[in-house]
Each structure stands twice: as C-alpha cells, then as structure tokens.
C-alpha cells in the first residue's frame, strides 16, 4: 500500500487543517502542516492540500489575499511541474483566485451560509482524485460555505465539459441534479486541464466515519493513493 507525504497548508484563518491531518493519517498517509510564510514545500511532497476555513477573514474576496502568501508561489511551481494539489472549500477558492483552477466562487444565490450533508453526483472519475468512484455514483459529503456559487464563462465551461474537468454536481438522493447555491451547471468540484489540480466546495475530510454521518470521503481521498 503506497504511503503518501501530504503537505497541508495553513493560512491565518484556516480551520480544517487538523481535520485534514486526521483524515489523511486515518488512511495511513504521512502529513505535514506547512505555514503560509514558508517559501518551499517539503521536498518529498506527493500531494498538497489547501485546507478549508476563512483565510484572512475572507476579506475582499474569499481566497484573494491568501493566494499572495509566500507558500503559494511554491504551490504554483509545484502544480506547473505536474505535482498534485487538492483545494477543499476555502482551498478551492484560493486555487481559483490563484488561477490554478478555472472560474470563480461568488456569494451563494440565497445569501445564506449553507451547512449540511449534501448528495453529490460523480460526473467524471477518470482522474487521480475520483478514480475509486464510479461515474454517476452518489456520495454524501458535508458542505459548509457562504461563497460556493461557482461561475465560469460559457466558452471555458464548454472546454471543461469536453475535457472531463467537471468532477462533481450537487444532486438529491435520486441523483437529480439540484441547484443549491446558484453554481453554473450545479458544479461542486472541478479540476484543471492537466488533471493534477482539484478543487471542491464539499468537505471529504469531514466524511471519514459512518458514526459522524458519512464515510464517503474515504472513497474520495483514497483515490490519491494511485499517484
């Protein structure tokens, strides 16, 4: 069984860092927390996780200030040379602000902070993240966000569709795609064209134990074992 070295980023206001540590260690991986002031990632990093929270208090726009932290330059270089990066919730927002993922995340359509367990439909599983899931499979994963309203222009969206970059959509328990926050095509998660940078609003690291509502997050995070 392959053991990964997972580097988990911490910005001021990150609050899912220790949940992410717990989740990846639960899968027997090794983790390291990396403070945003660092200029380099640990040399043996197999996967960078940009954990959720409220970096810099979500001031200006969610993720807009964090993306200029020193560590993000290293993450850019790491991603550009093919390294694997996963952004969860605020991490997704940071990666879009940094231009590592297409689109942007706006305030939820109903202006509410939405916090609940949500069904998701797997749109594409042919990638390093969701390869343990089947296409059209339904997963139950917690969501907790105010700025999850995914926007991307039509042209980029069409390229993303053709290239299998749309990973997850919000849906109900019968797999009917459902609008919960105003996202274009009800998108909950995407990847870049090279399929090494992934971002999603739901929190797989909070769905690791059936006792706490769902263990579907295991299936998602286990995917990275093949990288």
């Amino acid at each position, binding site marked *: 069984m392959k053991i990964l070295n997972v580097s988990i980023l911490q910005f001021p206001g990150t609050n899912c860092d220790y949940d992410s540590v717990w989740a990846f260690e639960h899968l027997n991986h090794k983790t390291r927390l990396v403070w945003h002031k660092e200029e380099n990632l640990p040399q043996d990093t197999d996967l960078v996780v940009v954990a959720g929270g409220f970096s810099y208090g979500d001031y200006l726009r969610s993720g807009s*200030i964090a993306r200029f932290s020193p560590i993000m330059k290293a993450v850019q270089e790491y991603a550009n040379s093919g390294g694997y990066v996963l952004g969860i919730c605020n991490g997704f927002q940071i990666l*879009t602000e940094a231009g590592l993922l297409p*689109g*942007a995340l*706006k*305030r939820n*359509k109903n*202006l509410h902070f939405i916090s609940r367990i949500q069904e998701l439909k797997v749109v594409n599983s042919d990638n390093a993240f969701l390869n343990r899931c089947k296409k059209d499979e339904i997963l139950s994963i917690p969501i907790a966000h105010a700025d999850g*309203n995914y*926007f991307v222009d039509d042209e980029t969206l069409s390229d993303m569709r053709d290239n299998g970059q749309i990973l997850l959509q919000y849906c109900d328990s019968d797999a009917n795609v459902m609008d919960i926050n105003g996202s274009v095509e009800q998108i909950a998660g995407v990847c870049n064209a090279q399929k090494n940078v992934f971002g999603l609003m739901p929190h797989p690291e909070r769905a690791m134990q059936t006792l706490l509502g769902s263990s579907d997050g295991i299936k998602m995070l286990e995917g990275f074992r093949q990288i």
Partner: protein
Amino acid sequence: MKAIVNVYLKEGVLDPQGKAVHHALGSIGFDNVSDVRIGKQIILELNSTDKEKAKEELDEMSQTLLANTVIEDYDIEIVE
C-alpha cells in the same frame, strides 16, 4: 493623491446581493426600481504626484488583487 476604485460584478453575472436589495426596496414600497447591482468601493491614498503613473499602477492593482476579472469589472477615479 486620493483615488477610488469601484469594483462590481460583470454584466450578465448574477448579483445575489443586488437581487435581495431590489426585492427589499420593492417590499417597502419603492416600485420604481428596475435593477440593483452592488459593488465595492476601495479608497486609496497614494504617495504619488504623477496622475498617469498612478492610473497605471491602480490598473495593475485592480487586475492583480482588487478585482477578480473572471467575474468583476472595475473603474478607476483619481479624486484629487
């Protein structure tokens, strides 16, 4: 030198806050409003005297940080 950068969602990008305020205005009797858009105003105090140079710099600031040009437009105004 004082400058103002206005940042607002692009035409065609849904503005949920604008929609909510539009609805609220209607509910308290202001029926004469056909649309509301909400933006941000960023007021900057600059240590420069060259207006043109300042404008260039403000443009760069807006492109890199103040606005997210995927969803937002901006305009720059030098006040004094």
